[in-house]
């Protein structure tokens, strides 16, 4: 990236790095603390800071409980929800970006408006409907309701990225006899890759950490929040186990982020960004 692009060029590389590190401390210290809590025994939890006797017992307790069963259910539902959203949402975003048709902005805004309803507003009628339809505690039921969370986000983010692409690129590809789906896969998707992976990651995170819907609409899919809170228990608070549960919960998101990061940071492959 050329320095002439960034307004921050004036403040010098050294200061830039310093500011970045300052934010990094703010962002990462609580995570470091959470990790420390997860390897601290309960009896030393509140009486020691960085010097203590580390233990893996918290992780052992968590993994030996029924945690993994909920973890995998959550994984299945979240991954499936994001995949469905991708299959449905990417073409929809393209349609909104490219085509002109009657009611386009209304439809687009309607899709966005599904995110306006606070979950508490609809949760109880939704619960009763789900019970009646036999969708309670099913994968299908949750994957479907998660679309309310993931689709608007995906469609609206991608729409902007699609609109940024010049139609001449498609024209050039079509001129050479590429079919429309080849144009889509070979030309368009690589160009929106940063937006696509960013939106996909965000959708997964929101689905993975979703709280109200799994709590009331299922028994066997419980997200990280609810599961980790179980370790607060009622005999005594097992902060270490809560931290361990939360750390394990974060793993799929971290792995996903690491997998997509080269797409996110390398940018457009057609030379839009130098260096």
């Amino acid at each position, binding site marked *: 990236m050329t320095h002439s692009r960034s307004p921050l060029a004036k403040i010098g590389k050294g200061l830039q790095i310093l500011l970045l590190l300052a934010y990094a401390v703010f962002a990462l210290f609580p995570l470091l603390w959470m990790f420390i809590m997860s390897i601290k025994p309960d009896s030393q939890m509140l009486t020691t800071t960085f010097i203590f006797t580390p233990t893996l017992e918290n992780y052992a307790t968590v993994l030996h409980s029924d945690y993994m069963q909920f973890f995998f259910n959550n994984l299945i539902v979240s991954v499936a929800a994001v995949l469905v959203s991708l299959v449905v949402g990417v073409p929809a975003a393209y349609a909104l970006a490219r085509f002109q048709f009657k009611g386009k902005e209304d439809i687009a805004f309607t899709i966005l408006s599904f995110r306006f309803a606070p979950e508490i507003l609809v949760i109880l009628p939704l619960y009763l409907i789900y019970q009646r339809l036999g969708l309670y505690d099913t994968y299908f039921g949750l994957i479907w309701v998660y679309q309310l969370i993931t689709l608007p986000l995906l469609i609206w983010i991608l729409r902007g990225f699609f609109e940024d692409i010049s139609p001449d690129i498609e024209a050039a590809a079509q001129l050479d006899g590429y079919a429309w789906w*080849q144009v889509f896969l070979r030309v368009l998707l690589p160009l929106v890759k940063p937006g696509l992976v960013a939106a996909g990651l965000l959708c997964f995170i929101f689905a993975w950490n979703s709280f109200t819907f799994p709590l009331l609409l299922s028994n066997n899919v419980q997200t990280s929040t609810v599961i980790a809170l179980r370790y607060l228990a009622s005999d005594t608070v097992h902060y270490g186990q809560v931290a361990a549960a939360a750390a394990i919960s974060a793993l799929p998101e971290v792995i996903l982020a690491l997998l997509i*990061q080269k797409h996110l940071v390398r940018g457009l492959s057609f030379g839009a960004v130098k260096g």
Partner: protein
Amino acid sequence: MFWGREPALSITEVWNAPMSTTLSSPRTPPSELPRGGSASKDSIAHARRRRFRPYLVLAPALILTIGIFIPFIAAICLSFTDYSLNSSDVSFIGFDNYLSMLQSSDFWHSLWITIEYAFLCTAVEMLLGVGVALLLNDENIVARFLRIVLIFPLMIAPVIGTLIWKLITNPSVGILVGPMRMIGLGDFKWAASPDSAMFSLVVVDAWVYTPFVIILVLAGLRSLPKSPYEAALIDGGSPWFVFKNLTLPMLAPVLLITLVFRLMLSLQEFSIIFALTEGGPGDATMSLSLQAYNRAFPFYGLAEAIPMMLFLWALVYFVSFILIGFWRRAQQRAAGVA
């Protein structure tokens, strides 16, 4: 090759074509442009199919989500009754729930708290997020490493993150107590005092959601086309001038969408506030979502809670409507710049 023949023009050649061609064309895909020739029966049918194509492409998305209208309407119907979760008697009471909501000072107080919270959080996160994204857009080692790691706070469930912040800032056992005492703030009560509760909430919310802004803005920065900047280099503009007249307008759509989502979600925010203060101390952080939750579940008065949620829904609708209008204008302007 798998895809067939090689194209005559390479993609980069098209991409680097002079700007005039891109400015003049409307944003319709080539397949939609009229093909000329006589209007035969075939091409009329073809045209009709083409006209319905966008609706067909959008249909799955709509079908998947349209179902939410049913519980939505059901909730509205319930709001005209005195349905509560701890009694079996239900009777129609008209607009009573709405009237008592509008007449209660609690409601207006909560509305104010909600707006204050959403505004503060969104402002902090947008400014911080854009700043950090700009810093991360560099190719030095620190930036490259932090690009991935700085997203992590968003991955922790907000309730758990709040719990950790509560522990860190606890004046009796928290790790921050020592440093705070050193700078003379040993008595700072964070979320346990009505004066600093809102501040603490904003800190936690910013910690969780700034990465959201960072990811989107970074993706946007990474998608900026190269040619306008090369032209600017030739013309010799200052970095600030380039930022103001090139980057910002081209980035405006991404910024606005991020703003819409952050504002929309922070107006509805529940988990973080509930986990940190439960709306207290007193009523210092009693947002609309919290008040509605209290009214519906612990207090069992579901029908009383619905008008509050509808009001919140309408507020979010109104704000988003305005912002999307800005977004559309920004999109058109960005197209002109590119």
